[in-house]
């Protein structure tokens, strides 16, 4: 049965967004190997359905905020891939003029309020954004993405309690990819089998979702965004996912904290593959559509790299700019 939410245009759009992130990330890895990108680089490959599904349920003026694995959220929010790549290259034309880098993308006009590299540190910021929109009596919501590794942190707990206490319109999206660097959730989180339960203990409504299924993520988000917009307070989503690559470029693809077989097992539930199957089996698209999307996205990513490559580095006179606001 074709559900009302299964519209051909919508589905192909979701697929395109996930494909854009996938190809962008693969290209970033290549650029890292060529030393065009440096520092820490954390790829979002395998987790695309969460950013794309969640952000598809937002209005353009809602807020989104993320941790350091942030390219996917930024691109899903609609940021220009050229400007994102230029930021990774440290170029003057980057989203943050080269000051931020991979872990600190910000696109304020698109209400992407940033990537943050201190685990747990941006969760209170999300409650602050939500506090502000409530204070300003705007009907906006804030969505906050973070890894399950942030769950034990004190900042997460303080933020959850505040959000519940003051019924703030914030949606916490926990990307549970089973690992924080080399540590599996069961060695880090007391309630590892029910991370959403952490939020419930603060009186926050919470649900677990298949984070490989972009439609499931989007549909749950649609429901909870409306609730939050309507003044029902925060919601917590535990999205079950898996990172197909190493923690960062300095961590081998599977490492010895997990087996190759485990990675291969999860790759069978590749979010792009799952959506493609859904589209094909519901006759909402054909192989030709996917070939077309590959071409389109390929061109976008190639153009992004060209733009980044041809852009100048910031002049040294920029060093002291923006330390303080005018």
């Amino acid at each position, binding site marked *: 049965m074709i559900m009302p939410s299964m519209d051909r245009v919508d589905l192909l759009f979701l697929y395109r967004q996930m494909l854009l992130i996938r190809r962008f990330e693969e290209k970033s890895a290549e650029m890292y190997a060529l030393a065009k990108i*440096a*520092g*820490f680089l954390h790829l979002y490959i395998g987790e695309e359905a969460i950013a794309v599904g969640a952000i598809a349920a937002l209005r353009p003026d809602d807020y989104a905020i993320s941790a350091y694995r942030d390219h996917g959220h930024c691109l899903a929010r609609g940021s220009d891939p050229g400007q994102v790549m230029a*930021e990774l290259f*440290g*170029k*003057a034309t*980057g989203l*943050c*003029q*080269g*000051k*931020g*880098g*991979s*872990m*600190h993308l910000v696109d304020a006009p698109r209400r992407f309020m940033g990537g*943050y*590299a*201190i*685990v*747990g540190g941006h969760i209170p910021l999300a409650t602050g954004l939500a506090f502000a929109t409530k204070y300003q009596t705007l009907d906006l919501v804030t969505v906050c993405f973070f890894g399950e*590794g*942030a769950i*034990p*942190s*004190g*900042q997460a707990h303080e933020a959850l309690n505040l959000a519940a206490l003051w019924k703030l319109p914030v949606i916490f999206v926990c990307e549970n990819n089973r690992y*924080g*660097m*080399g*540590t599996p959730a069961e*060695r*880090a*989180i007391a309630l590892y089998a029910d991370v959403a339960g952490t939020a419930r203990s603060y009186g926050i409504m919470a649900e677990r979702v298949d984070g490989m299924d972009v439609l499931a993520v989007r549909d749950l988000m649609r429901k909870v965004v409306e609730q939050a917009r309507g003044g029902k307070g925060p919601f917590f989503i535990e999205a079950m996912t898996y990172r197909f690559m190493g923690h960062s470029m300095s961590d081998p693809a599977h490492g010895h*904290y997990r087996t190759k077989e485990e990675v291969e097992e999860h790759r069978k539930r590749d979010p792009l593959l799952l959506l493609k199957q859904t589209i094909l089996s519901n006759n909402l698209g054909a192989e030709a559509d996917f070939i077309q999307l590959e071409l389109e996205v390929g061109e976008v990513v190639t153009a992004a790299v060209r733009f980044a490559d041809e852009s100048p*580095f*910031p002049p*040294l006179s*920029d*060093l*002291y700019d923006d*330390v303080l606001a005018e």
Partner: protein
Amino acid sequence: MLMSYREALNQAMREEMRRDSRIFLIGEEVGYYQGAFKVSKGFVEEFGPQRVVDTPITEAGFTGLAIGAAMAGLHPIVELMTMNFGILALDQIVNNAAKIHYMSGGQLSVPLVIRGPGSAAHQLGAQHSQSLEAWFCHVPGLKVIAPATPHDAKGLLKSAIRDNNPVIFIEAQLLYGTKGDVGDGEYTIPLGVAEVKRAGRDATIVAYSKMLLLALEAADQLSREGIEVEVIDPRTLKPLDIPTIVASVKKTGRLVIVEEGWHFCGLGAQIAESIYAAAFDYLDAPIQRVTGEDVPMPYSRPLENAAIPDKARVIEAVKTLCGTQ
């Protein structure tokens, strides 16, 4: 014996843990992952998970836990994956570890080492590139060490572990792979003792951690140009060995202080004040400071390079003092 800075730290902890079962290592990824920078390689295999404790990402929690354990007679070594994350544990370090001995009138003590890498590496961005040693040095009740060579790292870490106070031990990502001669057999280096790393007569450079390597390179080049620089590594930043610096300044009459941290309220300001107080009459010119720029670390390579002291700036500072520029 030639070994890396990383191996020297590994040996220091290993020897101490073999000697004293009260010592345990705790932090993120210290066990099965062998340490984020592989400093604790082989530890969980040798000492087991009870003494090599992997934690969740909870710096305030596990640092506080270590302080509590120290109060009850254990000797914890806390590994911070980087000193930037130590900011999350700062309440525990400043409000508890540093004060408990004093507040209790000496009844309780906190024998504890908190170690991990400080300073910038390559383009890690503003939240991962900070040199925060001045913050720790400001707090009464803490000792602070920042060794530059494998030999010093090993000897000082062993002393830090045997000390009965909270000791902040600052390493550097870019030092882990550097190699140097490490003394054979059992040795320790006392805290609070600087070392003259190179003798000279024309000017003195004080530099520590990564910046020592920069100072030595600058001294090499200056020597080829006929300027002989004396290079001093305080090694322990608190308590600071002022007499060794004073003795050098009395000889050279000129002082350059190099640090990677921010200029304003940086450690160099304190060192300069101490030297002005103790050796003003011996100075031929005002003390020069070479520091990091007062900005959050930019990601972009050329901007980052401009924000961190380099050899050219050290050489320029020495030449300015010597009147050859």
